[in-house]
């Protein structure tokens, strides 16, 4: 038995040695006279990655009240990716309706983006977006969220849902500084009072590599 094992190791060594010799023969390191070539293939893997910033929570201004009917707020997300096929950025609310205060809530604005305008006897909450990668045909051409609580007339707003809705997309790598997308929040009351209180909405932005 021991004899066989010994033979096995000896033969294995001889076999590997032979392979080595064979390699040296067919791949000489010293070239003689005539031109010879060789290729090496260098491989680098660039892993895809994506980041999103975490903007501060938003307090809409001014406060709504019996003499104030409209309020706005702003959040900016910056997305960076080296994904060759780019990214999408979507937003969604954690609840429906999105903006709630105990038993009271603002209805979600309509789901098709339109210029901000509230139906009579309603109070509603919605959002719009603008930025380099935001489609102006969908979201309008506004470049700010408005002023003094009044939403920009050149933006188009829609209501939140609990499923993600795309607000920006790019089909290529971003610059290292990323791409900002601004989300504009708007709330208003028309012909009816929203009950007083502190209303909150939790909005999740999701950046996904394509």
């Amino acid at each position: 038995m021991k004899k066989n094992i010994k033979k096995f190791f000896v033969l294995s060594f001889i076999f590997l040695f032979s392979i080595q010799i064979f390699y040296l023969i067919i791949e000489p390191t010293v070239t003689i006279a005539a031109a010879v070539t060789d290729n090496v293939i260098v491989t680098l893997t660039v892993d895809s990655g994506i980041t999103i910033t975490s903007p501060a929570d938003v307090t809409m201004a001014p406060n709504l009240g019996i003499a104030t009917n409209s309020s706005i707020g702003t959040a900016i997300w910056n997305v960076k990716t080296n994904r060759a096929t780019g990214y999408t950025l979507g937003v969604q609310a954690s609840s429906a309706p999105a903006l709630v205060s105990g038993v009271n809530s603002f209805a979600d604005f309509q789901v098709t983006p339109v210029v901000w305008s509230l139906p009579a006897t309603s109070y509603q909450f919605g959002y719009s977006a603008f930025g380099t990668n935001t489609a102006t045909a969908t979201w309008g051409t506004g470049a700010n969220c408005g002023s003094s609580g009044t939403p920009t007339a050149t933006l188009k707003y829609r209501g939140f849902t609990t499923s993600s809705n795309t607000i920006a997309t790019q089909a290529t790598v971003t610059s290292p500084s990323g791409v900002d997308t601004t989300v504009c929040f708007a709330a208003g009351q028309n012909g009816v009072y929203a009950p007083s209180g502190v209303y909150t909405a939790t909005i999740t932005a999701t950046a996904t590599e394509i």
Partner: protein
Amino acid sequence: MRNILTKKIFTISIISLFFIQMLYLIMEPTVIIAATVTDNVIVTLNVTSGVTISNGVDTTMTPNIGVISDKSIASSSWNVATNSATGYTLAVKASTTPALKNGSVDSFADYTEAVGGTPDPWGGVAVGTKEFGYSAYGTDTPTGTWGTALDCGNVGTGITNVAQKYRGLSTTDATIASRASVTPNVGITTNICFAAQQNAIYAASGTYTATITATATAA
């Protein structure tokens, strides 16, 4: 014998290569799952509680009380609007006791209820007295307390609406309307009725005034 060993060497070599290949597949997966990152922001909207009250119109009671006219009534109203989630209360009080006075010349006593502080129908005033009281009606005024009338009575005769219940004013607030929720934007109007009467006694001629303050408070 040699063939057997050669066969074993090849078999072991193939098995070794297979395991190395499997290890590579585990350490370096070829299927890449697209990455996703998320972030939350909390959006806060403060809806500030507020309440407004309209400026009630000063009122002159009719008809005038005199030697052949013993009763007189009048009305005014306030409109209250609030977005307070818990509503509002509206209360009234007089600036003096008694409320209706003609300087230091004379005055009407505040209406005397059968049960103090509990409004009751204006059943006339006791002989030898002259009194002044008020009632209220409106959407947010409880009919159980103030009666079911929808007007103050006959302004020509000064006779009060029998369906109303009156009480005397005091210098402390008495609630005449309330609700536990937001009002409509146009607010809620509460009407107040005033009544004065003399019975077998003359109120000294002159101009009597009462200053009534209505206070709307967000609940």
